């Protein structure tokens, strides 16, 4: 019953989004009369819940979402996306869809760019106000995801605002809570028996974490997923390619293959954007020689690095 209820709400929000998107498209074309936005609190409980999915897809087409996909490996996560520019005159280097939120957490979106920028700002803000300034450490991925999801949920229930028109993928690395030696022992058994489970450590052992957040405020953990345009086919592709115990390098490779399947146009360092969660990138530290300092685990690959991966495909 609870599920059903949530679905209805989604539907309403998506419908609203859809219309909002339509309105904006129309507005830009200026060829059709403007459709007034409907208040998002109006929704029909009689419509079957399935419709929400349809309107989700419809919305993504309208907004020309771009495929975003991620793969979580045993030692990291890949976020990959196509940077689609509407004109050859744009400067691709200034376009950026993948953002760093905390040194260990990165985020990417499908949907409306301006809404995403606002959410990135808010995510960075709450990670400090709700966490860094209280505990002097950065939030674990799930906590940040919950905070961002709260921001998005509140937009569905507040008056005078429309929901955020984006789906997010948030990838991060968490420290585990198990004592070191215990975690090491458990790690050894999995490696020693050559039976990699591919499970990320969860909150006990820590490791890479990947979440999807929807405009409703619902969030889902994934091992690999895609959002945006042709997400369905990308996910089917990922289902075939994903194996347990994937290494980060393989994950980048699979991500590029999946991207290649689903996008038209050339793939090069300028048109592809990749963010990875991997081992600490100490070379990104501003100052050297600080005791106990570790580099950010999240970083974006440079166009040159992307080119290198593409040539190796």
């Amino acid at each position, binding site marked *: 019953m609870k599920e059903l209820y949530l679905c209805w709400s989604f539907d309403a929000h998506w419908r609203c989004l859809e219309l909002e998107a339509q309105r904006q498209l129309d507005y830009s074309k200026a060829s059709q009369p403007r459709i007034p936005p409907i208040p998002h609190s109006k929704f029909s409980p009689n419509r079957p819940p399935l419709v929400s999915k349809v309107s989700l897809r419809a919305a993504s087409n309208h907004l020309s979402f771009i495929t975003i996909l991620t793969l979580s490996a045993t030692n990291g996560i890949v976020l990959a996306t196509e940077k689609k520019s509407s004109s050859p005159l744009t400067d691709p280097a200034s376009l950026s869809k993948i953002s760093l939120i905390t040194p260990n957490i990165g985020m990417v979106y499908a949907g409306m760019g301006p809404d995403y920028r606002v959410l990135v700002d808010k995510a960075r803000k709450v990670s400090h106000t709700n966490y860094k*300034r*209280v*505990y*002097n*450490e950065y939030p*674990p991925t799930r*906590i940040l995801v919950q905070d961002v999801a709260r921001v998005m949920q509140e937009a569905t229930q507040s008056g005078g605002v429309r929901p955020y028109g984006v789906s997010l993928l948030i990838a991060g690395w968490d*420290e*585990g*809570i*198990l*004592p*070191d030696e215990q975690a090491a022992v458990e790690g050894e058994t999995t490696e020693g028996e050559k039976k990699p489970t591919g499970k990320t450590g969860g*909150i006990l052992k820590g490791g890479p974490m990947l979440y999807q957040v929807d405009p409703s405020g619902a969030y889902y953990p994934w091992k690999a997923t895609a959002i945006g345009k042709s997400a369905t086919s990308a996910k089917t592709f990922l289902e075939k390619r994903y194996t347990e115990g994937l290494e980060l390098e393989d994950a980048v490779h699979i991500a590029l293959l999946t991207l290649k399947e689903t996008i038209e146009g050339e793939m090069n360092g300028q048109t592809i954007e990749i963010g990875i969660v991997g081992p600490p990138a100490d070379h990104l530290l501003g100052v050297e020689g600080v005791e106990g300092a570790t580099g950010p685990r999240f970083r974006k690959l440079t166009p040159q690095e992307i080119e290198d991966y593409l040539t190796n495909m």
Partner: protein
Amino acid sequence: MVGKDCVAIACDLRLGLQALTVSNNFPKVFQYGDNVFLGLTGLATDVSTVSDLFRYKVNMYRLREERAIAPSTFANLVSSSLYERRFGPYFVSPVVAGLDPKTGAPFICGFDSIGCIDFAKDFIVSGTASEQLFGMCESLWEPNLGPEDLFETISQALLSAVDRDALSGWGAHVYVIEKNKVTKRLLKGRQD
């Protein structure tokens, strides 16, 4: 007080109004997890208020994060919570002691009433008898004490110090925190 793979934290039990003793059963050390402890000296009402506040905050942390709070995280929580009251502080000087749940390393630190952290490798003292405690700890403490020796050291230091302070004493609680084990002992002490 830090030992080898263990820490100890102790407090006296007196509650008084200036020179008048009201109660000899007022513990000032509180437990916030398997191996996270907080000692509070200062105004009695704020000792209760602050200990209740952190019980609430730590319980919320545990529910939200589905894990126990680490002493270092807790210390930063104490610091930020006290500094929140920068211009109307709680009149307490807290001490945090515990073992890191991941590495098992001892952790101790102290604070002033507005949350400035004082990290230490050996011992932290606080309260009306802090000067006496400094003297006793400086002379009795040595590195790498085992749990039993650490108990003896902290107990002797505390009892000797409070005996030279008219405003402290009347019994003591001593906690020795080891990995997977916490020992709490009640010292009767002088009741005069």
